């Protein structure tokens, strides 16, 4: 039971709006944890805080026992947290290969001037990165599209490319924000099998998702948010049977108990 990520009393307020208020939970290594909840419940906001895109109003986020609150997104990524975005953010004019290669390059230890003064050595390093990038493209199943500009990919493949790009940074923790949203069943099936493959390889991830059968199918643990607060935590089966979760999804909000 090692928690790779521990969230302590985390809050984010936008003006008067409490998007996330005082949530605490832990993420175990080598598991895929689901973060679910109705629209506007604060899931994306939570991922944004973990990845450093947003600074929390209060609370701590411990990643491998280091408080990462206040660190920049790039630094957090280099520590080992990668993410995808609910609204896909690729490098549209670049090819799939370049999208992934760019992410690989950030893992090379070279100084910026190395390519100028020692091109041979730099090229050797780049070659390794190119190899690795192609492997990753192959792994997520878009190898054949490697020379296609990201903007020309199908929606499903754009999602895959975003995952490939995140994987290229070799994350210890991957944050996925609705990776199957807006997909047709075949595309969605592709992502699900990709995630299963990753889980078999020992990936640790937080999966934000609305599609229940995907969540139930993939997640080891689930945290349920509603109006910025955690209303349930547990195994998929427990969550499905939880009355507060059912109420939240059916819209009977704040009816009873201590929210």
């Amino acid at each position: 039971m090692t928690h790779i990520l521990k969230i302590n009393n985390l809050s984010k307020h936008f003006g008067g709006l409490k998007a996330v208020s005082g949530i605490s939970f832990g993420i175990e290594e080598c598991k895929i944890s689901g973060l679910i909840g109705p629209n506007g419940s604060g899931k994306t906001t939570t991922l944004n805080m973990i990845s450093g895109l947003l600074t929390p109003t209060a609370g701590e986020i411990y990643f491998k026992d280091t408080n990462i609150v206040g660190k920049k997104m790039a630094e957090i990524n280099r520590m080992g947290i990668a993410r995808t975005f609910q609204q896909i953010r690729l490098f549209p004019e670049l090819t799939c290969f370049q999208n992934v290669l760019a992410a690989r390059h950030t893992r090379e230890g070279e100084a910026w001037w190395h390519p100028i003064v020692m091109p041979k050595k730099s090229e050797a390093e780049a070659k390794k990165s190119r190899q690795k990038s192609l492997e990753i493209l192959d792994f997520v199943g878009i190898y054949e599209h490697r020379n296609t500009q990201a903007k020309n990919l199908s929606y499903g493949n754009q999602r895959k490319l975003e995952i490939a790009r995140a994987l290229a940074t070799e994350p210890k923790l991957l944050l996925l924000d609705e990776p199957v949203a807006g997909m047709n069943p075949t595309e969605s099936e592709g992502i699900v099998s990709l995630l299963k493959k990753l889980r078999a390889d020992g990936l640790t991830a937080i999966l934000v998702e609305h599609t229940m059968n995907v969540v139930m199918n993939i997640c080891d643990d689930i945290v349920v948010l509603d109006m910025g607060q955690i209303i349930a935590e547990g195994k998929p089966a427990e969550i499905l049977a939880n009355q507060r979760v059912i109420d939240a999804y059916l819209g009977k909000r704040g009816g009873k108990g201590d929210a």
Partner: protein
Amino acid sequence: MDKTKKFIKEYYLQIFGLLLISIPVLKGNSYYYQVATMCGIYCLFTISVNLVTGFTGQLTLGQVAFYAIGAYSSTILAMKFSVPVLLAMVLGGLIAAVFGLLIGFPALRLSGVYLGIATLGFAEIVRQVSLIWVNLTRGPLGIPGIPRPNIFGLVIDTGFGYFALILAILSIVYIAVDRLTKSKIGLVFLTIREDETAAESIGINIAFYKILAFVLSAFIAGIAGAFMAHFITYISPSNFISAESFLVLSMYVLGGPASLPGSIGGAIVLTVASEALRFLQGYRQIFYGVLLIAIILFKPEGISGILKTNKITVGLPKNKEELNLLLKEGKN
């Protein structure tokens, strides 16, 4: 026959470059050398714009500021402090780079048109300073009699000499920038231009790379300005008006973003065109304007689109075999 075709296909840029270089040499007259040397200066200048605007997507409308700083610094160092001219040129570039650094930091907070306006403002400040700081710059009178470059006692004062020198400088800068931008750094620059947040999400320190682009760009523009000063041997604030920034911007746009061969092409075409169109006088500006609009509307990739040397080639292997393997059966 097939072999020659292949050879041409592979080396057409180099062949074309050699042909271009040979024109002034064969003609051997000083006017041709002079135009060719100006082409070289504008090539440097355009590459500097491309580095910061084409690669990292930071719009600069005031590139002439660094050109001016390079020109004045080198001139003053050479004349007041008797620094050897070639060294003074390098120092002029470095001083421009320091200003690039100073501008780079506030530029982090701006983007798009706002950054463009800020750089435009900076260029205007530099020009005003050059007008007012009479002790150093002689103000509107300008500085005549700027010493010519001198390599180990050999004074460069012929058309051929200047042409050879700018060719050497341009080659060094071109190779360095080419290596840099075809490496991971070029790709990193492009990711920043494409989507800053996504770039950060894969661990790219965008502040560092944006400033790096600014500094390198300022250095190159500074060298171009310094060379121009020691070539024309007279500079005054009227050399550094904003129209100059817009001229190189036109060259950059004509060449196409993120393509060095494009920038070279754009710079040469417009330098030669403005010589050829001298008879149009002030109406030349209209020509540039119309050209700019036409390119943006009909051929946004500019010359680079025709040469197929645009951004999609950044980061690809140089090794032909590996490249072919990568491109094979790849859908495009």
